[in-house]
């Protein structure tokens, strides 16, 4: 334990931290209100998608003695004035559509006035309210068709009116409106329940519910109409009441608790806390306030940020900066080595066992006078493994063309068939034997995984290919193929990046290209030096992994040791570093 303690202290110092005096904690829970935090600043987070705002505030003077945590609030969003205006006008337009006596000119004027705003609503792609924008698009379509038909088609009029009223109903509520609504509906419900349930029971006895559901047609029509009347009355009453409550509440800023945050040792040390409020709506303005709560659960006054802030969406998404750097480094390394190989520098790469077997397999098929089966997985061309499989096919078919062996390529996708035909044809051309290319040896079977495999299984037993290649994405069918191939005594070479299927190929095939080896295979088989360069680039990627893992592990371990050594402040700094590595660099 002592050793750990020493190491811990060392680590902390090594991390270039100042020496901190240990704090003494006066735990005195009082009933008094704690002093509030101060100097709250809210700023839009730069370089984001427009959904985050950074907050920073100074801790309450009572911290760290009595404060347990801080409460962060944000205002409930309201709608911008122009949106409210648009919604009002939309309502007017819907009414115009419903009123049959409106002269067409008036309707046209109203529509044309609103149309630009409608288009704007349709065009914006506002992720969280996709339904609203969807209806806006529909409404634009319906209204435009109506106008285009000269406003004479009655049915188009109906459709346009309906689309507009659907849009009106789909308008997303602001948070304030939604809260009002929730209050209303709960009261309305109470009112309804109160009225109908006992009445129904009185009318039909205790079994009213079953009767209602099963024998609805037996309830006399006048009773139904009467009940319906009661329902309408109840609804109206509830609505009036809800409106009254909403009005009484007024329009003051309403707050929503975002989070309760315990100050960490590091925060106490710096006397400052930060928090990023996420998931905000970039079409809204927000206010923020923060209060302190002490151990006796007494909340202080709140400090409010001076200005209302609206999140802004920027062209560049800064949250992905680290990703961009890593992409650049990996891609740069690959390109660098490709270029180096092109310039004629010799590159050394190790051999992969399965690859030398490709020649052997093709040769054996030629000797035995039997065909070669090549399966490029069961996924479509939008899977990189299929593409890698096709490039391997290119080499295999070139070899086959040279040896004069027949390659059969059944595919599970039409596009793969097309791509495979192009590839094989090119390979035969390259081998100088374009006449030997047989188009019909590359054919489509079915998209269905097990239909495809049922066909392959039968075909393999009947035609007994001497060599089987499985290169691409495979799922459960991997073992069916490999076992059938084995039972007919074929040489089998598999390559896939599906971790779950690798064991079956490893167990039942002669050679298996595991994961990354499969992607490397096409570069190897091409025999072109500059393609091999890309493998060196991949190795740089692996070095980066090694460095990042080792560095991360050292910091994380140092953190644990600091915790074990009870070095609070050191632990706090190290924790911040680990968090940064995990959440910022590696996200």
């Amino acid at each position, binding site marked *: 334990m002592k050793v750990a303690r020493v190491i811990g202290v060392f680590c902390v110092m090594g991390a270039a931290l100042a020496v901190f005096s240990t704090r003494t904690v006066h735990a005195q829970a009082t009933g008094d209100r704690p002093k509030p935090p101060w100097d709250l600043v809210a700023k839009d987070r730069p370089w*984001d998608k427009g959904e985050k705002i950074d907050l920073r505030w100074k801790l309450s003077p009572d911290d760290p003695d009595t404060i347990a945590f801080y409460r962060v609030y944000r205002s409930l969003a309201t709608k911008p004035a122009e949106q409210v205006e648009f919604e009002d006008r939309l309502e007017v337009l819907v009414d115009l559509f419903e009123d049959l006596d409106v002269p067409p000119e008036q309707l046209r004027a109203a529509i044309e006035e609103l149309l630009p705003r409608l288009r704007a609503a349709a065009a914006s792609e506002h992720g969280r309210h996709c339904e609203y924008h969807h209806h806006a698009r529909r409404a634009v379509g319906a209204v435009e068709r109506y106008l285009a038909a000269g406003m004479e088609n009655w049915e188009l009029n109906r459709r346009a009116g309906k689309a507009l009223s659907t849009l009106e109903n789909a308008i997303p509520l602001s948070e304030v409106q939604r809260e009002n609504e929730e209050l209303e509906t709960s009261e309305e419900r109470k009112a309804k329940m109160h009225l109908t349930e006992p009445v129904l029971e009185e009318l039909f006895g205790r079994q009213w519910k079953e009767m209602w559901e099963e024998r609805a047609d037996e309830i006399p029509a006048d009773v139904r109409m009467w009940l319906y009347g009661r329902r309408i009355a109840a609804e109206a009453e509830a609505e009036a009441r809800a409106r009254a409550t909403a009005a009484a509440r007024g329009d003051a800023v309403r707050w929503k608790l975002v989070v309760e945050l315990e100050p960490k040792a590091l925060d106490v040390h710096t006397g400052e806390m930060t928090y990023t409020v996420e998931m905000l709506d970039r079409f809204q303005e927000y206010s923020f306030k923060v209060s302190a709560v002490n151990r006796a659960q007494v909340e202080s006054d709140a400090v409010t940020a001076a200005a209302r802030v609206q999140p802004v*969406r920027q*062209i*560049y*998404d800064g949250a*992905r900066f680290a990703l961009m750097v890593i*992409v650049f480094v*990996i*891609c740069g390394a*690959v*390109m660098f080595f*490709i270029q180096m190989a092109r310039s004629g520098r010799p590159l050394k790469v190790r051999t992969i066992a399965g690859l030398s077997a490709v020649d052997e397999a093709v040769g054996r098929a030629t000797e035995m006078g039997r065909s070669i089966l090549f399966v490029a997985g069961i996924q*479509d061309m939008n899977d*990189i493994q299929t593409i890698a499989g*096709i*490039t391997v096919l*290119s080499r295999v078919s070139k070899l086959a063309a040279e040896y004069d062996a027949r390659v059969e390529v059944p595919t599970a*996708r*039409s596009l793969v*068939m*097309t*791509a495979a035909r*192009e*590839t094989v*044809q*090119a390979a035969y051309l*390259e081998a100088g034997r*374009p006449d030997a290319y047989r188009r*019909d040896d590359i*054919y*489509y*079977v079915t998209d*269905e995984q*097990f*239909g495809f495999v049922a066909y392959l299984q039968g075909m393999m037993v009947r035609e007994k290919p001497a060599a089987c290649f499985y290169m691409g994405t495979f799922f459960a069918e991997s*073992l*069916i193929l*490999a*076992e059938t191939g084995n039972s007919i005594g074929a040489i089998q070479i598999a390559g896939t*990046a599906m*971790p779950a299927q690798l*064991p*079956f190929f*490893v*167990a*039942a095939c002669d050679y298996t290209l*595991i*994961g*990354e080896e499969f*992607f490397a295979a*096409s570069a190897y088989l*091409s025999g072109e030096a500059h*393609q091999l360069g*890309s*493998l060196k*680039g*991949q190795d740089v*990627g*692996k070095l980066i*992994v090694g460095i990042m893992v080792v560095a991360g592990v050292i910091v994380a371990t140092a953190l644990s040791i600091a915790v074990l050594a009870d070095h609070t402040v050191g632990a706090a700094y190290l924790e911040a570093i680990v968090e940064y590595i995990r959440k910022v660099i590696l996200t």
Partner: protein
Amino acid sequence: MKRTIPLFITAIGGFVLIAAVFSGYTQSWGEVAAIWFDVLAAIAYILGGGNLMKIHLKKISDRTEGWAYSVVTIIAFLATLIIGLGKIGVNPSEQFPDYAWSGSYREVGGPFWWIYEYAFKPLTATMFAMLAFYVASAAFRAFRAKNLEAVLLLGTAFIILLGRTYAGVWVTGWLPDWLSGLKLENVTVTIMKVFNTAGNRAIMIGIALGIASTSLRVLLGVDRSYLGGGEE
């Protein structure tokens, strides 16, 4: 020309989508491209289906061995296709009872559903179930302790197989509490959490690098085998 333009299209398409990821405005482009791909793949069915018909009709007309089975394939294919595309026997949807074509082509009880339920499903499920047999024969034949690697492979499979039945629990159930880490079910969990996690991670990191490098080779036009022949 015939090769340069496709190479250009490949590079532009790829690099634009890579760049699109880094802006909040364009992050949805990848999804749009995915939908476009689906449409393209669906159009390509015409090629695949046409090819299927051609092959089997050829077999029938040539009277090659087993041509009768080609007749079965063609009949099954055409019948399913016509019933499905024509929405034969499908009732309208409940929202639009007056639109004859509004119903779902897979409506429960319809002929297409019948084909799915009583031909497609049992056939594919049975093919899937055949794996139970192949797993057994593979275990018998391939799981032999030829070297240390093979011992590890079959040993782990052995422990997991045993640990996942009542027999496994019963075999080590007598172990006292302080040795509970050696109970088969716990050994299973440790293997899964430690060794399996490590192995899978290494494979996945490797695959990601392999995919990145392969993609790059394709985008840069270093690997262009898929583009076929023809003059430059």
